[in-house]
Structure formats: structure tokens, C-alpha cells
């Protein structure tokens, strides 16, 4: 399977008043056509920086990004604009990602105006088509975002992301801000769209149950680095990295019989300003030895489609 998106050694550092923050350090991954790759990790692990770097909303410091075999680095403004038509993003909170003063036709149509200069009936027809894809009718065209529920707003945000018919959608916790009873609607819609439009997804989330529901492969990040990668079912069934195990053991079971099973990882995520030497997870890891505190362990292949960055894998 040829990769639609391939990211190699992506690095992004932020210089702050208090020192250098290594937000993303040497992250590599690929997303195949029609595939869903989940990016999993806790706050500050660099998930969102990866997404924003791909969209060129921030500029990475190093690494190469290929999309459909084309290298983006050093591309002109025009090449970047073309690039942004091929991938798009749905943000976490549809209450803040939709401009409250714009009508739905203008919100969903804006990318079409910017990219193709569509106007009038041609624009309306395209907007209606994309609204229909997300299960909303043409009667909503002249409404404002406040007239919609959270689930409907997220549908509008998805319709906007689909307007330029991208190949890849970045979904940044698309259901986290929604009520539990409507999360399923959005997750099912995303699965259906993927099937019908042959979309690839980069699904950013910290909710492992949602990841298991929607993703093919998973990339676990910790403090700017990838610690484990592989097919979701196998990684979740038998994680190699102690951090992945810790994440899975931190999800409270819905079964009251398993109350005693919850085994949280001790300690907290270290500050990105002052990361521990070697493996960043070592201070919280029960398996860590002295060798873990030397150099960060490299991400090495381990089994079919899997890799992990750990000297003492499970």
C-alpha cells in the first residue's frame, strides 16, 4: 500500500522565555489511502503540534513531509495553497470553530470562494452537496451556528472540511466536546464518509475507547516522541511500551466487578521545558533501569507493522 502521507523526522521546537520546548522530536509516520491513523497521548505530548505542522499553520523546524509523493518543503506559496486543498482539519470544539456571525452557506462555502472563486448558484449547489454528505438539509443554508446543537455544529465543521474534497482529514478530538448521546452519531458519520469518499483520517484523541472504535493503526506519543506504533487491535491487546500499558490500565472499567483493576501510572507528565534525560517515561516507569536514563531509546520495528521505543518492552 503506497502511503498517501509520509512524515519523516518531523521536529518542532518552541523558544520561550523560560527555555526551549521540544514539542515534537523526530516523529515519523505514514498514512495510507483510506486508512485511519490515531495519534494518542496526553496533554503536552505534541499531538496538536504535529497536526498544525502538517497543515503548515506552524512551520516545523526539521523533517520532510510527502503528500501523494510530493515533497512540501521549500514549496512556493502557491504549492502550499494547493497542499491545503488536499488535507483539511476538523477542530475539537464546534462552539468555537464556527464564526457566530456567518451563515452556514458562508461557513461551508468559504473554502470554495477562496480556492476556486465560486459564487452564486454554483456555490450554493456545492454547499448543499456537502451539507447533504453530512446529513444536513438545504433548509439550514441561511441559519447561524447558534441555531444548531453541538452534534449538528460538528457536522457543519465536517462539511466545511470536506468542501475542497480533500484526501486526508485531520480530526482533532472531534467528539470530545459533544454530549455522549451524540458522539456515536458523529463517529458513525465519519466512518460512513470514509467508506463513501475514500478518505484517510489522522485521528487525534486521548479517548482510547473512541480510538479503538474508529482507527486502524495507532501512534502513541509521550512528551514529543513516538513511543509505540502498530495496528490498534494488537497494540491494545498486548502493548509493548509500559506507557501504552499504563494508558490502557488508566481507563476505568464500566464493569463494577472490575473496580479493583484500575492501576494508574504514578507521577505526572514531566515539564517539556525540563524533560528527564533518556527515556522521558523512565521516572514513572516500573521497568526502568539505569540504561533508560542515558539516551532516548530509538523507535525500532518489533513484529508485523509494529514498533516501539523501549529498552525493556513488555
Amino acid at each position, binding site marked *: 500500500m503506497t502511503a498517501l502521507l509520509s512524515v519523516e523526522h518531523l521536529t518542532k521546537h518552541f523558544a520561550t522565555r523560560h527555555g526551549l520546548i521540544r514539542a515534537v522530536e523526530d516523529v515519523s509516520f505514514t498514512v495510507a489511502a483510506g486508512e485511519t491513523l490515531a495519534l494518542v497521548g496526553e496533554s503536552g505530548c505534541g499531538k496538536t503540534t504535529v497536526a498544525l505542522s502538517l497543515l503548515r499553520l506552524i512551520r516545523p523546524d526539521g523533517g520532510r513531509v510527502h503528500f501523494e509523493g510530493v515533497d512540501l518543503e521549500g514549496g512556493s506559496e502557491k504549492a502550499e495553497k494547493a497542499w491545503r486543498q488536499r488535507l483539511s482539519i476538523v477542530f475539537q470544539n464546534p462552539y468555537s470553530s464556527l464564526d457566530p456571525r456567518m451563515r452556514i452557506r458562508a461557513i461551508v462555502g468559504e473554502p470554495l470562494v477562496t480556492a476556486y472563486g465560486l459564487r452564486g448558484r454554483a456555490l450554493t449547489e456545492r454547499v448543499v452537496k456537502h451539507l447533504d454528505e453530512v446529513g444536513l438539509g438545504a433548509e439550514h443554508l441561511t441559519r447561524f451556528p447558534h441555531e444548531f*446543537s453541538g452534534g*449538528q455544529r460538528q457536522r457543519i465543521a465536517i462539511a466545511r472540511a470536506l468542501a475542497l474534497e480533500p484526501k486526508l482529514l485531520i480530526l482533532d478530538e472531534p467528539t470530545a466536546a459533544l454530549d455522549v448521546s*451524540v458522539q456515536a452519531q458523529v463517529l458513525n458519520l465519519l466512518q460512513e464518509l470514509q467508506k463513501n469518499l475514500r478518505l484517510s483520517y489522522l485521528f487525534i484523541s486521548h479517548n482510547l475507547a473512541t480510538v479503538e472504535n474508529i482507527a486502524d493503526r495507532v501512534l502513541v506519543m509521550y512528551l514529543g516522541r513516538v513511543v509505540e506504533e502498530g495496528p490498534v487491535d494488537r497494540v491494545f491487546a498486548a502493548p509493548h511500551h509500559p506507557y501504552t500499558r499504563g494508558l490502557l490500565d488508566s481507563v476505568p472499567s464500566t464493569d463494577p466487578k472490575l473496580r479493583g483493576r484500575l492501576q494508574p501510572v504514578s507521577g505526572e507528565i514531566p515539564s517539556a521545558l525540563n524533560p528527564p534525560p533518556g527515556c522521558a517515561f523512565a521516572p514513572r516507569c516500573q521497568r526502568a533501569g539505569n540504561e533508560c536514563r542515558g539516551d532516548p531509546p530509538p523507535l525500532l520495528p518489533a513484529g508485523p507493522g509494529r514498533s516501539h521505543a523501549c529498552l525493556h518492552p513488555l
Partner: protein
Amino acid sequence: MCAYDCPTFSTVPSRASVPEMALHVSELCKDYPTPSGPLSVLRGIGLELQPGEALAVMGPSGCGKSTLLHILGTLDRPTSGSVRLDGHEVVGASEADNERLRGGVAAMIFQNPGKALNPFFTIGRQLTDALACVRGLTRGAAEQAAVEALTEVRIADPALAMHKYPHQVSGGQLQRVMIAMALSCQPKLVIADEPTTALDVTIQAQVIVLLRDLARIHGLTVLFITHDLGVVGSLCDRLAVMYAGRVVESGPVDALFASPAHPYTASLLRAVPMLGRGRSVLTQIPGTVPNMAAPPPGCAFHPRCPVAQPRCSGDDPASRETGSGRTVACHFPLPAPAGAEAGATVGSLAS
């Protein structure tokens, strides 16, 4: 009387043998005045909590959870009904009387500790103020009690933490401070509003384990407002499911998870992704939560209900007891699945 014409409820299972409930709520109604008439947010809520019990209240956004929480914490007053906190009637009591209940009898843990604590004062100052105010301790005694409370919630260096400002501490530590503050006043009832949703996955698990241990050690009575079925399963004894300002189903957590009687509860359990279910298509609940300014006639859930009958759009079902401490407000409750026992897991619903 409340604007909503609620049917006469017998929402609360009778437990005559227990003399005093930590919390007893009956026929609680709350209307908010709006330009287009009163908005009925709570429409006859009945709940009760025995000392030492942990009750989860679940429901979609807009179902009235927060309004209920504010009333129970004596931060708001209901339109009608009764709320008894540790034997004290809250409704109609004077502000001075309710002031005494706040913190001392009912303490709250808020969802977002970063917003609940004052950024201008040290953690120590905020803890000692609460202790001095609620328990009437002297400054010295309050400081000692505050350090003890911080130790109890497993803050690494309590004496040092006392001198820190909220922004100098991580979110997980702040939530521990909030828990310490709530428990330091030795309340009869702790009301926790989604205490773990703002936290990271691994930190969330730490706080859940902390709350569980503290509840066991002190025999705490806790009312959790939550969205998270995992929190319900790992922390709570009983569950009350709210929908559109009513408790539509309540009972022991494992019984409710194994054989939900209300179609909303059943749909919800199948609509939420759970670890271990794999890549399944979720059963979605069609439509959206009703607008309380114009609630549907009859049962508020009927427009979204898979088993609704003509009768459901006519009259609103009263809540009734179905045995083993369970109540349900539905004309056509789901039968218990054949062979299902109280111990069957939620996971089995997936199959």
C-alpha cells in the same frame, strides 16, 4: 407550584428501616423565568442517598444536572419540592441557615479546579480560610488541619504546596487540593461535578483511585455528576439517569448496566464506545436532546425512542418502583434479558 404540571410521583423507593438519609430529594422542580414564559428545567426530581453511599447522576447536556447540583449545594433555590440534607430542610430555610450547611454539611468539588480556585491567593490561604470559616478554627489550628488534608490527598510536599499559587501547580494536583478543601470541613455529603473530566487519562485514574480510597476510609457519602460510564462503574453504587429534567431510571449500577429498563439508558449504553468492543458500528440515538422551552408532549424521550407507542406522546409516565431498589419512568420498560443476572457485564450488550 412549578409551571410544569408533573404527575404525582412516587420516585423514591421506600426504605422505612433507614432513619435518616444523607440526602433526600422529592418532587423537586425548578423554573427559570424567560421572556417567553417559565422554562421548566427540573420537573419533579426524586433522589435519596444513604450515608456511605456513592450515587452517580448521568444525563445529556441540558437535562438539568447543573441546576440540580446548584440546588443541592444551596447555591440556588428551587421553585418547589423538598431537599433534606442530613435532616435539614433546605427549601424555604433562611440564608443564614443554608450558610451553615454550605461546606460543613454539603461540600462541592468542581469540574475545573483551575477555575474554582482563586488565582490571587495561595493554596494554603484558601484552605485555611475555608477551615476557619466553616469549622471556626484558629489560624494555627486551621493551618495544621490544612496540611493534614493535603497529606491525606497524597500531595507530595504538603508544607511546600501551602505556599504555592494555583498556577504553580498541575491540574491533577489542583484537583487534589479541591478534594482536600471539600473533605477538610468534614461534610456529611460531597457533591462532585465531573471531578475527572478536565484531567489527563493517567491523572484521571489517579484521582479516581484517590476518591475511591478516601470514600472507603471515611465512609463518604458522594453524589457524582458525570458523563463517564467508566467513572460510574468504578466509583458508584447507584445510578440515576436524568433526561429532560426528570430522573427516568435509577437503581444499583450493576443491575442498571446489566438490564437497563428505560430505552434511553439502554440506548446510551450501546452508543458509547467502550474499550474491548473493537471496531463496531455504534448504535446511535437519533435526534437531539429536547429544547426545554418547548418540550415534546408526553414522555420527553419519545421522539428519539425506538420502542415509542402512541400512548407515549400523550401522557408523561410517572416514575414507579420495579423492585430491588430500582425505579423507572416509562410506559413500556424493557424486559430484563432472559438469563441475565445482576452480575452480567455491560460488555455483553455489544454482542
